């Protein structure tokens, strides 16, 4: 579904991604782990073109998104994204946050969008918050609204950029539960995360990145119990035993 070939990205003189090649199949859940500054988030943002890659190819259903003629806006309708800092629209109610994009893009009428938004809010456990504003929500609630907002566009796949990193520890669980339930429904997802137990439990495949490159990838069992690369071992021993 998503194929990345030899992707590279620089910020000025600094190479943040080099020669990244990977595939994601439909229905697959891929977790990307690795130390801070390893390029995980940049890589994710290169997929839906929030960052422009400097080289390589990003193919979505066989079409190269880096071609000038590619319709990035259409692609973004199909590839939802959830951000570390939620990025909810502060002056809009929870319901309006969710209905805005489907209505503006002409996918749905206001009434249809509202009905669906309520359904999505029920799904993330926040039905009673429909009329409130983002500032009245906890971080975990905000992130669940952000997930509902992304789902409202009925995306074919979801990208998660450290969805729980900005949350208080006790709020992380609710958000992960929602993501887990999406995985069970067969949603294709790429999740950049520091939650190792979540990656272990939910991912079909785990990618370990360091220094802007993919160091190792494999199923969670392989990566977490018998990593082949020294750097993976060092990283895991640090994050798993603190």
């Amino acid at each position, binding site marked *: 579904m998503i194929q990345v070939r030899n992707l590279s990205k620089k910020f000025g003189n600094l190479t943040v991604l080099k020669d990244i090649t990977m595939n994601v199949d439909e229905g697959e859940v891929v977790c990307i782990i690795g130390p801070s500054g390893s390029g995980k988030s940049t890589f994710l943002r290169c997929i839906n073109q929030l960052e422009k890659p400097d080289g390589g190819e990003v193919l979505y259903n066989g079409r190269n998104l880096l071609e000038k003629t590619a319709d990035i806006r259409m692609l*973004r309708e199909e590839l*939802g994204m959830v*951000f570390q*800092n939620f990025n909810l*629209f*502060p*002056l809009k109610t929870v319901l309006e946050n969710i209905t805005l994009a489907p209505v503006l893009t002409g996918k749905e009428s206001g009434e249809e969008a509202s009905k669906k938004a309520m359904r999505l809010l029920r799904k993330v456990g926040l039905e009673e918050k429909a009329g409130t504003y983002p500032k009245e929500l906890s971080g975990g609630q905000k992130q669940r609204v952000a997930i509902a907002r*992304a789902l409202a566009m009925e995306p074919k796949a979801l990208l998660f950029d450290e969805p729980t990193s900005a949350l208080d520890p006790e709020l992380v669980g609710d958000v992960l539960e929602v993501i887990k339930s999406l995985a069970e429904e067969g949603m294709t997802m790429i999740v950049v995360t520091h939650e190792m137990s979540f990656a272990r439990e939910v991912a079909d495949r785990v990618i370990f990145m360091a220094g802007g490159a993919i160091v190792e990838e494999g199923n969670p069992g392989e990566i977490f119990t018998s990593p082949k690369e020294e750097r993976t071992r060092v990283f895991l021993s640090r994050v798993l035993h603190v």
Partner: protein
Amino acid sequence: MEFLNVLLPMLFRGLKVTLLVSVTGIFFGFILGSISGYALQGKNRIARVAANVYVWIIRGTPLIVQALYVYYVVPVLLDMNLSSVAAGIIVISLNSGAFISEIVRGALQSVDFGQNEAGMSLGLTDRQIMLHLIMPPAFRIMLPSLFNQFIITVKDTAILSVIVVNEITKEIQNYAALSFKTIEAYTTGAIFYLVIISALIIIQKNIERKLV
């Protein structure tokens, strides 16, 4: 205090003109400033340069010179008639517009870029993002500064007395010239301004409190 019987009606007549020029001036200034402020932070180079030149000229010349220029020079160059009130409104619009464009630019830039990215990631167009996600919070951010600019503008209109706009200051001068009561005229006039501006400041404080 009998002089007040003559002076006060004159001041209130001046107040009407002051408010007319200030309110219409700030209205057109807001439109002008929004366009120019948008251009200042936008991607279009030509528009950005044009907006910069506009702001540079207005900030680089005194308001009084701008007033004299619009009233005495522009009508000659364009071979047209321009009433002093119309010239006053034009000057105030151009002048406040330049300052408002800096306010607008700052407000647009201060909206978290994450809003932009959230909009993009949902498949919205640049236009929809600007209209629905950036402008509403930006307007909230700029409202106190806009009102502050309005207060400055009300005081700035005093300068239009040099092109015979009969606003408050011109009325004060008229009274002083007629009655020779200079002390009474200017003291009352200053207090009159103070009362008007204080009322506006109280309104401004209320707006700010509501926005927090």
